[in-house]
């Protein structure tokens, strides 16, 4: 059967040469090489559950009276969008589960990208010839964040409405055209009657298409350039050593796939996420407190909270303070990530191609920079929930804010110094990587012969 199918296909498409190599393609055994696959599988979960949600959701802002089974909101005037989310959550069989799986999978998708990017970064896998794929990864990360934001903004609840209002305020702050941009995106004044509809098409069509395309290109480049690998016996810059794709690697990957789906399902079943019925419908004059975005947008919110009120008047025009943390900072971070491979190659005067990976300690400066960057981002994220933290630490809120304002400068520096010192120390202490490798052979006398490899 397999034989006839393969021959039939090869007669028509000449696939034998490709498939022969593809089925035996080497996938390195190290577990960290599978981190990126988490995102592919989370994306599949997102598409599958998202299609189901889209069968029910209406991105409408017209007023309707809620008459569903959730008693506290019975009789309230809500938007169509909010109404369909309540209906989906309380009246559709399995609807709440699928909604929660979708939301959890989105969190896992972005988290997976972050973890995968850390692996790529700290092992130097982004170096020549893989700079472009690093850039695609960076774009996918930000696309994932935006897609996540556009998703949790759809239900038209009080929390998501606040988030959208903030996003529009950032857009409005753009020099020259900000006010026009906001009007063209909203289709007029705030609160907008068509923004949800535009966000909906962005969330279910434009961004998924871009992300699917991005993942495809990312994987095609990976396939073409082949995997990197850690140094080890028989491993050189000219080869890849690993398990064949079929069957052994495929089964490891299947295992990961089912594990990811299962984690999404169990989180969706047991850990409540975004209970929009508790937030209530959006009303521009109302707010919930404390208001927390999803974690992947939390660092942006944190930056908005701790950035000082630094606005500029230039030539009779206004640059609002929100412009710097809201727009300049994320663009700068994206740019910094995108150019990092080129910057490192320039600074280290190293333009050679690398297929063998570094251990994190091997390049102390890179490790130190990465740790400083992660510390900075983590501080922004924590700064985004300062109003929650003061409930536990009993400090005045604005002292906590001041603390974060100081910490975002000094803690990354401290992380830099500590990471640099640790890496340098470890590097000096040596290890398998640096030691001269020898092959030991038992000889006829019962002793050992050494020869370098």
């Amino acid at each position, binding site marked *: 059967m397999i034989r006839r199918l393969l021959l039939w296909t090869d007669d028509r498409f000449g696939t034998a040469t490709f498939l022969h190599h593809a089925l035996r*393609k080497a996938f390195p055994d190290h577990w960290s090489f599978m981190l990126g696959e988490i995102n592919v599988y989370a994306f599949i979960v997102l598409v599958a559950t998202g299609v189901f949600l889209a069968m029910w959701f209406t991105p409408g802002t017209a007023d309707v009276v809620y008459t569903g089974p959730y008693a506290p909101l019975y009789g309230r005037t809500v938007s169509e969008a909010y109404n369909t989310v309540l209906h989906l959550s309380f009246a559709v069989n*399995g609807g709440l589960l699928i909604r929660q799986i979708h939301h959890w999978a989105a969190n896992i998708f972005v988290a997976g990208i972050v973890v995968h990017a850390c692996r790529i970064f700290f092992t130097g896998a982004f170096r020549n010839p893989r700079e472009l794929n690093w850039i695609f990864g960076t774009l996918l990360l930000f696309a994932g964040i935006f897609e996540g934001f556009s998703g949790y903004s759809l239900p038209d609840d009080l929390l998501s409405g606040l988030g959208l209002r903030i996003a529009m305020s950032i857009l409005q*702050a753009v020099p020259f055209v900000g006010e026009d941009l906001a*009007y063209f*995106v909203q289709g007029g004044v705030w609160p907008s009657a068509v923004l949800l509809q535009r966000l909906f098409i962005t969330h279910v069509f434009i961004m998924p298409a871009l992300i699917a395309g991005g993942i495809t290109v990312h994987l095609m480049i990976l396939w073409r350039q082949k995997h990197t690998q850690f140094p080890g016996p028989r491993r050189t810059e000219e080869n890849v050593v690993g*398990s064949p794709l079929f069957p052994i690697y495929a089964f490891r990957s299947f295992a990961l796939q*089912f594990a990811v789906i299962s984690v999404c399902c169990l989180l969706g079943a047991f850990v409540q996420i975004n209970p929009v019925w508790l937030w209530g419908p959006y009303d521009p004059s109302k707010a919930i407190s404390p208001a927390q975005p999803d974690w992947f947008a939390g660092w942006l919110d944190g930056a908005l909270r701790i950035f000082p009120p630094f606005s500029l008047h230039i030539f009779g025009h206004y640059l609002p303070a929100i412009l710097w943390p809201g727009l300049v900072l994320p663009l700068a971070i994206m740019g910094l990530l995108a150019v990092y491979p080129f910057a490192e190659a320039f600074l280290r005067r190293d333009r050679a191609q690398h297929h063998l990976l570094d251990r994190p300690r091997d390049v102390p400066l890179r490790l130190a920079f990465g740790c400083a960057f992660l510390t900075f981002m983590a501080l922004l994220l924590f700064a985004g929930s300062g109003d929650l933290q003061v409930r536990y630490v009993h400090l005045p809120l604005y002292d906590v804010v001041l603390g974060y304002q100081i910490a975002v400068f000094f803690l990354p520096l401290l992380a830099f110094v500590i990471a640099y010192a640790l890496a340098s120390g470890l590097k000096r202490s040596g290890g398998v990587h640096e030691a001269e490798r020898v092959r030991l052979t038992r000889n006829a006398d019962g002793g050992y012969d050494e020869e370098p490899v």
Partner: protein
Amino acid sequence: MRDERLRAIAAALALSMAGSIAFAAAFWMHASTQILGASIGAACIGLAIACLGWARWILPYEQVVDLRDTVPSPEQDRLDQIDAAVRGSAETTRRAWLTRMLVAALGTLGAAALFPIGALGPPPGDAPMHSRWRRGSRLKRSDGTIVRPEDLNVGSVVTVYPEDAVGDYNSMAVLVRLPDGVGKGTLDGMIAFSKACTHAGCPVALYRASDCKLVCPCHQSAFDVTDGARVVDGPADRPLPQLPIAIAQDGYVRADGDFNAPVGPGFWQLS
């Protein structure tokens, strides 16, 4: 192959099937979110364990070595592609003026294709500079009732709109009753400000009566109501615009004109 490993894989597959069947049954019976998720989750865990067992115990461990010969291409191909591209470009652009026209035509089409973006929304005009408050507008709550001065106790706040524009974002205002003798520019202890935070546009929905501060729940900008709602803490960069109010002869509180500045978060045209 040890038997207990095979049995473990078989058990995992059995668990998976049981989970799937349980999910189908639970769905049929409209079971709770937890039961639905646990059963389908168990079905996937079973398969994950089985696949992992398969990879570790059933499939033979082997290592293959791929040679990294895909890049770069052979030297002759590299030169030939450059030749082909250069020759093709030269042939294409031999008539320089026609080439320029081709580029111009493409550019013009591109520019024309941008015009539909203009249909996405009306341009703002000077709408962001104004609200719907007029001299004489009465102050209406969102429930439709009109505010009278005696309605407000000291320390209380109420969200108000112009009577003909309830729900209008640019016009939403917060009317505060301060203690006697506190605050500048009050009218019988009452003072009104825009409710749209000047930082990111959230409603300034928290009022702390103890020190007369309006606080925004989104990013914690704090505005001193006794001092023209100037920013005392947090990231906002300008005070909340004030709504001038007066008490008319009929005893209602009325606006005495529009806000003293454009409301909400800042933008380029704001000077």
